[in-house]
């Protein structure tokens, strides 16, 4: 009713979801999102492995991300489709050596007057 948890809801959260000091993982962190190309090398904070802190990996499940999985009520975002398409492209290009099929395909469409 309010936006606080009710006493019952709090007890449920405390019992099932709350991370404790006794847990092996006390904190979960996403990787730092910073533009490497816009910053000084020295100012960038280093990500040191810390005991009890689990750093999530964005690339760990790459093998699974080569096609969109079934959805329920909400479809995948444009960003998701974009990512999956690029992963498929990477898979296709992975086994090429030397000449690039994408390049050979697109080269004929290049007009130098379009390039600044």
């Amino acid at each position, binding site marked *: 009713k309010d936006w606080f948890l009710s006493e019952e809801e709090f007890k449920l959260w405390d019992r099932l979801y709350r991370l404790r000091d006794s847990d092996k993982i006390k904190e979960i962190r996403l990787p730092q*999102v*910073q*533009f490497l190309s*816009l*910053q000084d090398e020295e100012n960038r904070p280093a990500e040191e492995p810390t005991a009890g802190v689990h750093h999530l990996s964005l690339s760990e499940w790459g093998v699974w991300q080569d096609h969109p999985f079934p959805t329920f009520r909400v479809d995948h975002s*444009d*960003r998701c489709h*974009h990512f999956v*398409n*690029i992963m498929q*492209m*990477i898979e296709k*290009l*992975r086994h*090429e050596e*030397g*000449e*690039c099929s*994408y*390049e050979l395909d*697109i*080269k*004929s*469409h*290049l*007009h130098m007057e*379009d*390039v*600044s």
Partner: protein
Amino acid sequence: RLSYQQRLKAAVHYTVGCLCQEVAADKEMPFSRQTIAAIAEVTFRQCENFAKDLEMFARHARRSTINAEDVKLLARRSNSLLKYITEKSDEIAQ
């Protein structure tokens, strides 16, 4: 329309190649042709997403033209990128 899009893609691909060449020289690490192709494709698709957002921003402001303010809004989630884009925008305006 498809031919025009292919022409745009080719221009993006060429430019991406040039930019990667600069980074390769700076970092002393070459790029495979396939990597350049993939980065070009990422860039082109990302531009499509940008274009949709920019159109919506302009429409929201009841304008029929996309302007520099819309572009700055695109960069809002990163302070460093927003600062960079704003500086470039001011340079261009001057």
